[in-house]
């Protein structure tokens, strides 16, 4: 074999190999284009929608607000409002006003507000007044909860995360109620006028009122009255309140309350239905509630809500002494446990459907708002009529027979006392407190506004230096990851975050 031949062959071979290489590279290039398409296709999320769907988003927002209200009522707010006492220190620290952030509820309300906001934008895009109005109502309720529980909150620049704005600054509470753009009161006003102008809306997904525009207007107007009254110390509500009353689009009976019947099975059931026995058993009637029932001769509601105490469990007749309230304790002793009432067993069985509903605002509360407004001269009309409507409506709300309310109104401590406006106010707010069992923090919020009923503080009732707080602490997330805005807000409180800061209307 000659050398040059070897070399020639080698060159040929090398050429062949290289050309094969090039061919395969070209093939690879073709392959690559299809690969590139595959890369895009593979990353399309098969599990979720990429565009919002109005009907299902509306359903979810309604469910979220109602369910979370029922859930927080049962686990925390009933304690805050002093309807309920936990018997064990392991559980009761938050209900004895230990400064806590209550952050899961904060999260739930901001997320509901976010979806409501998306719904509103969808409604604008679709030119659907109904969707816009429902969205405004639901967003306003969420923000009202936030500001009434925490005070000043991120508001005007909140919910903008999708545009890359992750850390919204805080706004004063006044802005939250009154901001012309998104404020609670202007939003609700706009919601009502949208519906008034477009009385025949139709939309899927409305599991609350089945797309009944009138029902939505009643709900919206009841909320308007609630929040107008709330800020009435700072802002004269008379004109708008009177306009609402004159317009007449208000709830007429308990059947028109903003209430959602929760299913009996998880995950949206009333929490007592699926609570561990042990968790149910540590919840007792609070002494304040017991005393109020006794002092007003309210044998109907005490039996509807509570069970006889262990000492009298086998009694078949009724006597207030068979029930008992538990004061706010660190740990209850044996005597207290034996003489205090747990909640009624229907809270576990779900037999009484009207007790396990979620309610945002009831006919009864609306009437008591009007009663107070009349007493204070914000609106014209007879306070007593509204008061009586409220008291009667409260019984109707939880399915108690028609005769009970009028009887109850006959009790000397219940019959409307118009001797002084203070006396009237105390009665009205006390009855509103009784109406709002299992309705969020309304009792505590109204106590902060009016001082009624006199919630117990000091001693073992308060882990907050003996005081009843006016707000929850901001969630740790705000402290750590919205730190700059948080610090600015805390400077308003005097340099450190306190639970007795008064934001606007309760100053």
């Amino acid at each position: 074999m000659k050398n040059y031949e070897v070399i020639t062959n080698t060159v040929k071979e090398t050429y062949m190999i290289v050309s094969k290489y090039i061919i395969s590279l070209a093939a690879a290039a073709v392959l690559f284009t299809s690969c590139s398409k595959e890369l895009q296709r593979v990353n399309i999320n098969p599990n979720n929608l990429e565009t919002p769907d109005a009907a299902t988003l509306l359903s979810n927002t309604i469910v979220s607000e109602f369910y979370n209200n029922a859930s927080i009522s049962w686990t925390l707010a009933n304690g805050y409002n002093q309807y309920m006492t936990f018997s064990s220190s392991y559980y009761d620290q938050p209900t004895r006003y230990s400064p806590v952030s209550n952050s899961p509820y904060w999260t739930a309300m901001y997320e509901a507000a976010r979806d409501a906001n998306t719904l509103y934008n969808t409604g604008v895009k679709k030119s659907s007044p109904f969707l816009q109005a429902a969205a405004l109502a639901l967003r306003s309720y969420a923000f009202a909860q936030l500001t009434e529980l925490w005070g000043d909150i991120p508001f005007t620049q909140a919910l903008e995360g999708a545009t890359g704005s992750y850390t919204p600054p805080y706004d004063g509470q006044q802005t939250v109620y009154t901001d012309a753009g998104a404020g609670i009161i202007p939003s609700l006003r706009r919601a009502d006028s949208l519906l008034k102008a477009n009385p025949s809306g139709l939309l899927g997904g409305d599991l609350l009122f089945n797309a009944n525009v009138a029902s939505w207007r009643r709900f919206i107007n009841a909320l308007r009255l609630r929040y107008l009254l709330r800020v009435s110390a700072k802002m004269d509500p008379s004109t708008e309140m009177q306009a609402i009353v004159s317009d007449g689009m208000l709830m007429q009976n308990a059947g028109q309350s903003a209430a959602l019947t929760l299913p009996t099975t998880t995950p949206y059931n009333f929490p007592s239905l699926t609570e561990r026995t042990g968790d149910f058993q540590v919840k007792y009637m609070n002494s304040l509630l017991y005393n109020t029932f006794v002092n007003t001769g309210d044998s109907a509601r005490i039996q509807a809500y509570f069970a006889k105490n262990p000492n009298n469990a086998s009694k078949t007749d009724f006597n207030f002494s068979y029930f008992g309230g538990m004061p706010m304790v660190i740990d209850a002793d044996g005597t207290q446990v034996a003489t205090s009432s747990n909640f009624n067993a229907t809270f576990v069985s779900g037999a009484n459907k009207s007790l396990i509903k979620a309610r945002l605002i009831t006919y009864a509360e609306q009437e008591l708002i009007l009663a107070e407004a009349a007493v204070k001269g914000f609106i014209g009309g007879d306070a007593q009529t509204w008061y009586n409507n409220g008291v009667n409506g409260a019984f109707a709300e939880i399915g108690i027979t028609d005769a009970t309310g009028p009887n109850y109104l006959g009790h000397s401590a219940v019959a409307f006392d118009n001797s002084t406006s203070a006396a009237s106010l105390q009665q009205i707010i006390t009855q509103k407190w009784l109406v709002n069992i299992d309705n969020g923090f309304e009792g505590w919020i109204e106590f902060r506004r009016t001082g009624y009923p006199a919630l117990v503080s000091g001693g073992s009732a308060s882990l907050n230096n003996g005081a009843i707080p006016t707000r929850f602490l901001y969630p740790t997330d705000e402290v750590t990851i919205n730190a700059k805005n948080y610090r600015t807000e805390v400077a308003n409180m005097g340099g450190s975050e306190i639970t007795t800061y008064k934001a606007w209307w309760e100053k």
Partner: protein
Amino acid sequence: MIVTKRLWRVHLYYVLLLLTVGLPGLLMAQQPVEFSGRIVDAVDKAPIAGAGVQVKGSPKGTITDAEGAFHLSAPSNALIVISFVGYRTVETHAGSAAVTIALERDTRSMSEVVVTALGITRPAKSLGYAVQSLSTKEFTNAPDPNLINNMSGKIAGVTITNGGAGVGSTSRIVVRGENSFSGTNQPLFVVDGVPINNETYFNNAVENSSSQGTWAEVDWGNGAAEINPNDIQKITVLKGGTAAALYGSRAANGAIVLTTKKGTGGKGTMGVSFNSNTTLETPLKLPRLQNQYGAGVNAYPLSGTPNTYAFVNGGGGSENNIPNWGLKFDPNTKVNQFDSPAGDGLQAGDLTPGAVDPNYHIVATPWIGHADHFKKFLQTGVTTQNTLAVGGVTDNGSYHMSVGYLSNTGILPGTDLHRYTLSLRGEHKFTNHLTSDVFLNYINSSSSNRPNIGYGSESVMYTFFGVYGMPMNIDINSLKKQWQVGQNQTHQFRYWNNHDNPYVTMYDNVNKFSKNRLLGNASLKYEFTPQFNVTVRTGTDYYTDNREGHRAFTTVRFPSGGFRTDDVTYLENNTDFLLNYHRKTGSDFNFSVSGGGNRFMQNISYTRDIANALITPGLYNFSNAQNQLPTLYQKFDKVIYSLYAFGDLDYKKVLYLNVTARNDWSSTLPKGQNSYFYPAASLSGIISDMVALPDAFSFLKLRVSASQVGRDADPYSVANTYLTNTPFNSYPLTTANAVLANAGLKPSTTTTGEVGTEMRFLKDRFGLDFTYYSSETKNEIVQLPIPVSSGYTNAYVNGATIDNKGVEIMLSAAAIRPKTPGGLGWDMNFNFSHNVSTVKALPAGINTYIYAQVTQYDRYYRAIQYDAVVGGKIGNMYGNDFKRDPKGEIIYKNGIPQMTSSQNTLLGNYNPDFILGWYNDLSYRNFNLSFTWDWHQGGKYFSYTSLGVLAGGMSVETLPGRETGIIGKGVMDDGAGKYVPNTIKVDAATYYNGYYNASNNNAFMYDETYVKLREVRLGYTFRHLLGKGSGSSLNVSLIGRNLLEFTQNKDIDPETLALRGQQILPGTEFLSIPATRSMGISVGVNF
């Protein structure tokens, strides 16, 4: 084939070329001789099977058979190279006389061949970065059922933490520190060059609630745990980015490369081996429980009425009866208890509330302690592992087959694990140019109950040691009854309504699974010329994991029982090709270049069905559901294409340069940003071959390398979506995904630099390998928590920078070298590592990033937070602490310790300051002893078990002052703003409840430092069982794991992981199953 012939001509050309440039005439035609002999171990004279016997500079060679014998036809006087992993290579000249060649052991041989990325083997000496390997012997000394645990203490730079759910739980392995907040920081596992899955896929469980219908989390075990260690020839850990760069994104945390066993021995021979290990597991330690006081809220108040315990008819007592601040045990004290007789053969716990017949009267029984209830509840665990393997070499290849069976009975009654493995590796040579290599592994794992762990009544550990754990007066034997009389499967027999009967938990409320997994790879290699070849390879890891949960009626969270199924299907395929060209130029420079590409595809699907209430007790079927939730079905798909190339250049075998480059295209990144390139280079020089060093130095190598590895995002993180919630009645619900996607995501990059040296002294008697590395991960993609006031809870963003710096030191020593064959020999090595992970930057505007939390349900006010703070270390944990005066004394108020209200106190860091492993191997005649010590220094952890036993008055540490009251040690405000010593006495219940407040995280922080005798093996080998000269042997050994431990916490093992929010988290002991000590016997037969 014509092509073949031509190629042979090419080959010849090179041979000619070699000749003309005047290489030493290695291949010069000489008369061949028949060279034969036997290769033995220089120390114990045992035959070495599988040793390579190669004509130097020629492909000609063979390997020794089971008896160490070889036979080779070689040119007379040709230089023969004899090598075997773990031994020093010997060169000798071929002759006609049979020889016996003794190989010296080499604890960290430089002739060692290391499997690097893509399954390519390279001489260890040429590597410019740190790798470390373990041979079968080293990781099967006292085998743990989880492959990962067998590496503990043996690899510098690797942190291994055993899981908390007993045998079968997930172990965590981290190489050179955490460089990511999200994800698991797990290295990539590779079998024969093809990646496999090591993830743990959790059920979609709910941990944030104690209410009904919430299924707790279960640890189903990590993927790599299932590989039978006996099928593995070698484990190589590629620690740094340079080593792992070619494996791409998933190797950004290093790579654990497993090489499976091949058939060895002489042609036509067959080797059979059988290994059997049986071990018994007992708890390493248990919480020390007091046996003096039983249940009760406060039996000895300084004032007021005593609050003591009595079982309420069938009601199970109220919540506040359960902590152990009750009456002192005294047989003369009689109390109504759940197992007190109630007439008619019934006990108090048989009486159902509301249905109590007034004729039944509970007869109070003596108040006596049963502090051994948990100990009695446990059983001795038994683990057996058997592997039968057959291997051999045929005319055209080799094969290795094995069948393995692992069976475990856990220390918790009713728990078990079964695993069958079947593996096959075969090589076949079709022609002189075409060879194939196939590995197949079928694994079936199953369990009749994987225990729930963590917080809540689903977890049996919570029943015993959660807050309000099982009171000291409860007799566990009484609970064996399980069901109330006549109420089988419908009413539990128990002492309290908030706890399940632990036997019901273990025997009825089971979490079963059966997982069938097939993994394997096949490759074809075609050699165009000896210098140029192409390999095409494909590997798949496919499994289906079918899980099933049962809950009996009257279970705390499932009053009407429950049933669920969760099915995970996982498919991963890697297909690649690789072209290699290597050239020995004959000059001082040799080089090789390679190029290839890979397609990675991963499909995961998850299906869940749940019924949270059943109709008929004991029937677990969806047709028996009272109501069934809608099926949840989720899919996660991902594809990555890669192209890569690498080259090696060496100069006179003293200076090595290695360069690699890879480009990935990932489906998870947005278009236009889905391509990322990363390079790596390393250089090493054998200084001892370049310059004359003092005699004491037998070897000195310096190495330096740098690399970058890119990493992509999670699937579906570039477009915002709306999630579907469980429908409300018949209304479907959607809500915005609270995690914001990001269409502008970029790949993150980890840049690593390392320098190192390898030294050997006194004729290789001592060796030192030192590495310093520094890595920086930039643009880390995090699911950044954002204030929910923005509407969202998290956002995918680039932006975190994490820095890891550390050193690794490996010391090896032949402490005692046998003076005579079979004499006493002692080899040891030390593996030291120290790593610091620092957060250098967080995304703009964010100062703190909470990347994980451990909570009791959603009790956020009792959370341990894992916060990343710029400038802070990764692993820092935050929470509540005592209020302290300026001197650090605890501040008391009314005699009770006070607590901070913000959760911002730095409680400690879970990462150790250093880890030191000490591996020893001693031999004397036919005896062998090996043992490993594992020392973790520093780090802190939070213990939920300690919280439970202290806060619940169960611990022996809560005995002082029970009846007399306690004045806590600390200060109090004197009313004028001055701190004076606390003088206020409170009763014991008040004091301990205050001091061990469940919200006070810092009361339960412990030093994580521990020293463990990780494993011991003492064995005797009977040789030549089938006659003299035969390779058959029998080894009988005593084996043990976790035999001794020294640490601060006397109640629990600090080496444990929390399972929370579908994450395995270090730094928190979350009501783990007690760690075990295992002891047993191992028998191995080879013939």
